[in-house]
């Protein structure tokens, strides 16, 4: 479970995030949406523990900056970056060991095969295309078996097959109880996945609602987004 309480973030004198609070339950996939510059990436990075902020962020009742909290957290960044001298396979080993995961070889093989990286597992980070880097980033985050997974613009740079596989994996881990927070502009791409929507506008949370709470059940994310963001 992910709990964000009174999160406020300043960049110098500019208040980027204004006292927002929300909860995403275990086994729930929440979509974080908002116009450009609304503060979505700032929220994701604050939860990932990469930024300083005011407020409180808890990962399954553990502070997100504590070692226990970090161990439960997975992060797929918007811009993937690889270590130039590590191979694809070594990137995944590194993530597993950094998170003290043992016996991960079988899962690694499954992930590499799912994302068509098996035959590229010995390629160096510097030899990968942006799409391949994105796939490796996904594998690195998933190998750690996170309880809370943060995904920043997940579909950008992926080929159709990888998008399909990623969606299937997100559904699978959500069903197993993982909390997922996806930040995206491509609302169509998460239409069949979402359980909760969080809409941010000018640094403020203007909507947090689960699918069940909407009166019209088959309302599209796009319709909801425009309903709450258009002035």
């Amino acid at each position, binding site marked *: 479970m992910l709990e964000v309480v009174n999160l406020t973030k300043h960049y110098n004198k500019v208040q980027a995030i204004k006292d927002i609070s929300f909860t995403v339950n275990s086994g729930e996939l929440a979509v974080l949406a908002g116009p450009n510059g609304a503060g979505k990436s700032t929220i994701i*990075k604050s939860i*990932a*523990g*990469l*930024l*300083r902020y005011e407020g409180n962020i808890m990962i399954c009742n553990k502070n997100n*900056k504590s*070692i*226990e*909290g*970090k*161990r439960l*957290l997975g*992060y797929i*960044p918007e*811009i993937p*970056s*690889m*270590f*130039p*001298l*590590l*191979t694809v396979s*070594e990137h995944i*080993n*590194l*993530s597993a*060991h*950094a*998170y*003290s995961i043992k016996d991960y070889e079988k899962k690694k093989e499954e992930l590499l095969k799912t994302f068509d990286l098996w035959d590229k597992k*010995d390629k*160096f*980070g*510097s*030899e990968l295309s942006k799409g391949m880097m994105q796939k490796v980033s996904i594998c690195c985050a998933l190998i750690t078996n996170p309880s809370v997974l943060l995904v920043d613009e997940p579909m950008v740079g992926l080929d159709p097959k990888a998008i399909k596989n990623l969606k299937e994996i997100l559904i699978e881990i959500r069903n197993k109880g993982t909390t997922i927070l996806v930040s995206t502009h491509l609302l169509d791409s998460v239409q069949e996945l979402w359980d909760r929507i969080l809409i941010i506008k000018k640094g403020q949370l203007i909507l947090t609602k689960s699918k069940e709470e909407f009166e019209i059940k088959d309302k599209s994310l796009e319709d909801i987004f425009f309903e709450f963001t258009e002035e």
Partner: protein
Amino acid sequence: MQGIVYLLKTTFINYFKRFKKQPQKAIGPFFVVFWFFIIILSYKSKKSTGIFRFEYFMVISLIYILAIMLYALYNGTKKLSSNFEMNDVNLLFVSPIKPQTILLYGIVKKLWAEIFAMFYIIVQIPNFIRNASIPILNVVILIVSVIFYQAVFCNLLKLFIFSLNTKFKKLGERIRFSIKLFIGLAAVFLIYVFVKGNVLLFINSLVKVITYNKFIGYIPVFGWMREILYYSIKGINFYFWMNIFLFVLTSIIMLYIIYNLNLDYYEDVLTGAEQLTNIKNISKNKEQYVSNNKNIFTKSFKKKELNLKNAYGAKVLFYKHINEYVKRSPIFFINIYSIILFLASVILGIFAKGVDVKIIFLASSVLLIFSAGMAGKIFTEIYSHFIFMIPDTPQRKLIYGTASSLVKSFSDSILLFVPFGILSGKSFIEIFLCIVCYVLLAAMLSYSGVFAFRVSRFIGFDGDISQAIFFIFFQFFILAGLYIVINLVTLGFKYFNGYTIYLSYILYSFVFSILSFIGGIGIFKDTEF
């Protein structure tokens, strides 16, 4: 052309306008100007106390001038070095502006960047000629001439050679061969002189010929520069201005030819533009840079699997770094830098047996202080989210993140001190102390580098220039502290005889390492440092 003029004009105006919004951005440029004036004014106010060796000034300067020229010639045959970024590619290259005009814009960008990059060398000129007692105006003219030579002339030369190379395919090969032949012959000749000849006599004759032989003055570029240096010290006259004129005229002719060659150069600068944009994104967005540019310093030499057996948490950083060193080095930790240290050690051990090992230790430690800066493996991690996400304590991250640099320093120190010690028959204890002090100094620099990086970010020195200046000051601060400690220890522990310098290093490095470690830990709390 109007578009380019507009772009240059607005970029220039906005460069100053942003200081209003982000005053910390002005610190770097302000320091550059301030320091420049301080150096010029201090030059004026100080009376000369030492002896100015005119011939040595000429020879050292001309070696530098020759090296820059050969580099420009060699580089020009290889690739088009530019300062274009992806915004130029996306917005200008596809626009209906003549490629020649965009090339001129590229030259202006390159010159601007080079002038800033030359700052460190420029400030050395007044120090170098302090005892020459020449008028301040001559100093300024000399500085401007050197800037013109390096930033304008050599860049145009590079571009000129590149342009000709695209038209005459064999030219590049021939130039590269000639340069290699020249360097090879010079190296063979120097070795011969050092082994068989009279070194002092040779140096004296070389110095005299290079400084005074009038025929050298007629050699294009090298000779012109000799005349400019000569007359800026001896007195500016008609010949000085004539040589300046020759440089300007040659530059204009080269520019004219380049402009009219209708180069199809866009493809050649694309990779460079991508790399430069990536590098700039590092400092702006704190992203990790993955270079696809494989040269001798970045390519992987061999495949060596990352072995993480029983390594968990922050410990993986150490194993990852060791693996990277091994992949990038021909033999274990021994990379190009280590080989240079080893060769220097062997050459000194054979030809300079009488040199005190303390001199070599001091020189290598100064080199280490000024080269360490942000060179450690830890700085390749700071821009990636990975290190921040590792579920482990900041202390362990800092220890394991810097540990591989210490192992590398240990390996380098053995290559540097042991061959020299054996060949020149120095005391075993002293060689051992040199190694200990070198490694301790490296530890101190690793931790203090992280601490300095944190401080520079905290006070808003996040621009390339301001950060570089901050690091220069920080290195001087380290040196000053070290100097004070050496003096205090020498006064307090006279009975240690020749070992006081090592005692000072051990004390200073140890205390400063602990303080820097404590100050640097916070860097791993979040990416905002």
